């Protein structure tokens, strides 16, 4: 059953590559919004693949404890919390008026705020 271990190690390597790419994106992108696109969210899939890889790599010790359950809990947990935290953070950044990069094509939200369709949340 050596191949399960190989499969786990290869998945771990793919996850590590994805994490590395997201870190490179974090350095290269021009503004906060694009950094979030690559920095925290591209790493979600990398983390999930890595966790599955760790679970498979450890198949000899599945009898010792609940590796499978822990890995599933961690994956579900990341899938539930990651979008919420990045959405809240970016919304705060937008209304704090962190500037968008010059490459930006359109900003429909700005237009709608100027036309009073959307109200800005009040700062206390």
């Amino acid at each position, binding site marked *: 059953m050596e191949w399960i271990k190989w499969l786990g190690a290869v998945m771990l390597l793919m996850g590590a590559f994805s994490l590395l790419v997201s870190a490179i994106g974090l350095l290269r992108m021009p503004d906060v919004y694009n950094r979030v696109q690559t920095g925290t969210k591209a790493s979600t899939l990398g983390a999930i693949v890595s966790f599955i890889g760790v679970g498979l790599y450890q198949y000899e010790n599945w009898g010792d404890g609940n590796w499978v359950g822990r890995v599933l809990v961690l994956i579900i947990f990341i899938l539930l919390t990651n979008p919420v935290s990045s959405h809240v953070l970016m919304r705060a950044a*937008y209304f704090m008026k962190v500037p968008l990069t010059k*490459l930006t094509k359109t900003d*429909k*939200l700005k237009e709608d705020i100027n036309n009073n369709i959307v109200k800005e949340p009040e700062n206390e």
Partner: protein
Amino acid sequence: MKNLFVSFVVLMIAWLLLNWTLDPINLLIGSGLSIALSFIFCSKCELFTSINLTPKAFLYTFLYLGVFLIELIKANIDVTKRVLSPSLPINPGIVKVKTRLKSKMARLILADSITLTPGTFTLQVEGDTFYIHWINVEHTDVETATKELVSKFEKYLEVLYD
């Protein structure tokens, strides 16, 4: 009643995943705790009212997960190409889309799915209008952007929630 049942099932699944045994004492403690917690925290809540509990909806949950995983992998490959190419071919902008989903829970799942796919994230939600930051803007008008970003998830979520 439906709220209590769904929250009981969710709590029980979490308990079983964390303990990973099926012996009777464990099951008894877990179900007792889950019933108590769902009565304390969800006796008045309306969180899960709109979930459909039919076999078709059960099947569509797995279909939705499959579609979502495929989209996630495709978007990840796309973003990887953009990050690693030397000229940095990005084209960002904020577009506006409209959804035809009515219930709050379905809108939450839709916004979360859009946020989890790299390349797009939900910046602001106003009723049925989502403002989405898109790393590669192809269409700026509402209809085409809706078709491009929302429709692929929407047709499954319509079956799951009403």
